[in-house]
């Protein structure tokens, strides 16, 4: 859409009194052959929240980075408060009153809230003044926080509050929020948007809200721009649109699959088809659990109980979703089932046999496949080839007298590359040359090729785009149909609702509640996540 149509919207009553805070004029940015932004025109109005919606790679973050001075545009102009500005680094942006709350927190756990807020300041330090300022901001926007609290002990929601205070302290007139709700519970998200609304209406600041979730866009934003492949493909008022329209705009076609809808946050529980589930829940009843975790206790090196008497069972063919706010034991649970952590007490049984926890490779040998939360951390070796990564967990299968048969490995890798549609320069391409989604496919291929009895999928679709999410979800379903017991650990509620037969909620290393599939809905789950009793 062009400036003219934005101006038309600007003529709307609500906007009549507001002035443009930022105007992007034909911003174009190429990275080599890749178009990140193509002739983007967009206006951020004072006193309004402008939603920027799009898939991963649509260009929304690049646009925001241009505004904050992290990326220089190839062509185009930026007008701030009506004057053309050259923003060549974040300092320029700060001088113009532009602040950004990043997707990933840049806080230091070992420091207190006020220490974190003051980080990056120069000159002499006045702790009292800073703490007072934190108090003022808290009162003003409903962002109350204890300035003496250690950041490491805060929940994700409070940590984000610290980030926002860091940003607001400099009194920016233009605020950018990049995927702010990625790690928040539904309640925390709502609180965030309430305080955001405060900032906007009472002080007439301009806010750009970047997200790929439709629901929050619809509820939080005043107007919405949809980006696809670097272009603004649609522009509308939040009050005049609905989720399906937005979803079509993002993907560029009708959104059909439930997993796609889940990815975009438009899924509704009642839309779920029930035929397959009935069949599966019937079969699950008759079989005994293949994975059984009993009273598992895992302690961190500093004595903190990461898992606290956790009980969990998964039956063959069943998908059990593990929901919960991050940091409540999801990662230790995944690590335990990857042989990376040892139990202090309790036990893990696979197929009726107790598995020695923490012994290298024991879980893998017992038939537990893992798609780890962070593939670079415990999924792949970037400096090895694709083929080597595919045989890592079981190299003996491809060796005669412990000498690896390269032909066999090459053939196997080729087969996996074709079967899982891995985009790479052949079996012996280095792993680091693959994109994130394709690295994830390598992990998936390797784990499924082992014919696991149990598959642990930890945040399997994090950071993937819609097509990749769709693929991952269908693969998980397929595995469940082949009677693999699947433990789906995810912070995306929609993903869990979409795939799981049964949902458990983790809190402080324990199972805080369990919901059968039929009873589950977002509100119910959200309450559980927020710590409410069942």
């Amino acid at each position, binding site marked *: 859409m062009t400036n003219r149509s934005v101006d038309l919207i600007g003529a709307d009553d609500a906007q009549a009194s507001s002035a443009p805070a930022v105007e992007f004029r034909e911003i174009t940015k190429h*990275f*080599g*052959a*890749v178009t*990140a932004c193509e002739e983007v025109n967009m206006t951020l109005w004072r006193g309004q929240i402008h939603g920027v919606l799009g898939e*991963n*790679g*649509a*260009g929304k*973050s*690049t646009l925001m*980075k241009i505004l904050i001075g*992290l990326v220089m545009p190839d062509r185009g102009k930026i007008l701030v408060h009506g004057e053309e500005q050259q923003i060549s680094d974040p300092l320029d942006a700060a001088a113009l009153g532009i602040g950004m709350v990043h*997707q*990933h927190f840049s806080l230091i756990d070992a420091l207190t809230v006020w220490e974190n807020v003051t980080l990056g300041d120069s000159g002499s330090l006045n702790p009292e003044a800073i703490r007072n300022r934190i108090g003022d901001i808290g009162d003003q926007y409903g962002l109350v926080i204890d300035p003496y609290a250690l950041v490491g002990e805060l929940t994700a929601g409070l940590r984000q509050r610290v980030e926002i205070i860091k940003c607001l302290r400099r009194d920016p007139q233009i605020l950018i929020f990049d995927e702010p709700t990625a790690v928040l519970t539904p309640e925390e998200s709502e609180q965030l948007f309430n305080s955001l609304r405060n900032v906007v209406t009472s002080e007439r600041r301009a806010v750009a809200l970047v997200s790929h979730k439709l629901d929050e866009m619809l509820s939080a934003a005043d107007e919405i721009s949809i980006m696809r492949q670097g272009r603004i493909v649609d522009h509308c008022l939040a009050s005049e649109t609905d989720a399906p329209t937005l979803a079509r705009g993002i993907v560029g076609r009708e959104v059909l699959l439930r997993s796609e809808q889940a990815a975009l946050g438009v899924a509704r529980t009642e839309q779920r088809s029930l035929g397959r589930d009935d069949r599966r829940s019937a079969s699950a009843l008759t079989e005994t659990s293949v994975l059984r975790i009993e009273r598992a206790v895992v302690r961190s090196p500093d004595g903190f109980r990461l898992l606290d008497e956790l009980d969990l069972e998964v039956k063959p063919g069943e998908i059990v979703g593990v929901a919960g706010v991050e940091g409540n034991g999801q990662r230790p649970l995944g690590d335990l089932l*990857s*042989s*990376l952590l040892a139990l202090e007490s309790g036990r893990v049984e696979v197929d009726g046999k107790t598995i020695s926890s923490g012994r*290298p*490779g*024991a879980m*893998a*040998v017992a038939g537990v496949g*893992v798609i*780890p939360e*962070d593939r*670079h*951390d*415990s*999924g*792949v*070796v*970037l*400096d*090895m080839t694709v083929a*080597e990564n595919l*045989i*890592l*967990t*079981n*190299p*003996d299968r491809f*060796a005669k007298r*412990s*000498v*690896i048969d390269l032909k066999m490995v090459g053939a196997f890798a080729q087969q996996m590359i074709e079967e899982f549609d891995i985009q790479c*320069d052949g079996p012996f*391409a*280095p*792993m*680091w*040359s693959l*994109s*994130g*989604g394709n*690295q994830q496919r390598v992990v998936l291929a390797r784990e499924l090729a082992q014919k696991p009895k149990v598959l642990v999928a930890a945040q399997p679709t994090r*950071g*993937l*785009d819609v097509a*990749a999410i769709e693929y991952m979800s269908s693969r998980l379903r397929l595995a469940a149909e082949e009677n693999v017991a699947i433990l789906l650990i995810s912070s995306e509620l929609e993903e869990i609702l979409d795939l799981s037969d049964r949902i458990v909620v983790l809190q402080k290393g324990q199972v805080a509640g369990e919901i059968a599939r039929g009873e589950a809905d977002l509100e119910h789950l959200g309450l559980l996540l927020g710590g409410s009793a069942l």
Partner: protein
Amino acid sequence: MTGDNTAVLGIEDPPVVTIRTRGRIRSSEWFALYTVSIAGALFLAGLLVEATGGEWRPVLWAMLDGSVRRPGRWGETLGTAGPVLLVALGAVVSGKAGLVNIGQEGQLLFGAAVATYFGFLIGGPGPLNVFLILVFGALGGAAWAGIAAGLRYWRGVPEVLSTLLLATVSSQVVAYGMRWEWLLLAPQSSRGNRNQVSSQLAKNNRLPRPEIFGNEFPITVHLSILLAIALAFVLGRTVWGLRLCTLGNNQRVAKRSGVSEKTYGAGALMISGAFAGLAGGAMFAGGGFSFGNYQFMTGFSDNIGWTGLLVALVARERALLAIPVALVFASLRTGSSFVGSTGVEGRITDVIQGLLVLALLIPPAVMYLRDLRRARAAATARV
């Protein structure tokens, strides 16, 4: 590393940018970079020689004389390259496992001491005795590295520190052994007025030194080349090698796929020490004027351990590449002994050696930094 970088930035699924596509123009870039940086190092070395009152031409000639041209000298160079290569191979093994063993000098010295002790203690017919000396050398080196391994895996002491400090301890322990005739010291009758030497190895208990075109060197040179080839195969083509490299690259992936950090890590450190100790045994049984002439003494290791470590560093943990690099460094060493005749301090070759190491490490560093920069640029592109 580039992948890590994109991970840090939280960027996934780049559209088309790959670092790989630039691979084709690379070999010429590599060549140019190496040429420039080596030329730079040699130029600086020349300047240095001139600055200290010498002339670069006679110094260069002396070095060539000492390492290759004079009769018998290239044999001497090869004989030096043998143990240097062995040490380097050991450093390759520990490096692949992600461990930094920098105590080869001590492991070599201790290995040689153990080889000397048992060599004289057991005696026996010639070939068997030579074989035992080599075996005990390797065992001694492995044991010395084993201390560092134990500290690392039971007490959490970083092996970088322990291996280095143990090198100092090693020379003290050996000096102690040199004080007693029942340990290493030769009986009064055979050492004359000299202190701190062991007995000389009997003629039939020495490694064969075949003579080729007036040059002779011990057959450990052949052995070390065979071992380099074998090691390249083991690391590249066996399950053990794959698992060792997995451990070196990503400990968590390794643990998940059944590689025990203790077993593989401690094993790699001890194998690394064994190579250094083997080099020590080979130096003792292989003789050569610069290696004590079949006698063990304090300071026997004579910097071969450090040189071997540098070779592995420059060869960037590639066993086969270590062969030519070991030759270059051995030439510098043998060449340096002739530099003194030009009136220039012979130790200037140590400086030259340092400059060369830097020169050989600069191109990988440059390429790495460039990759990193490009990856960053690409990463910011990937929204």
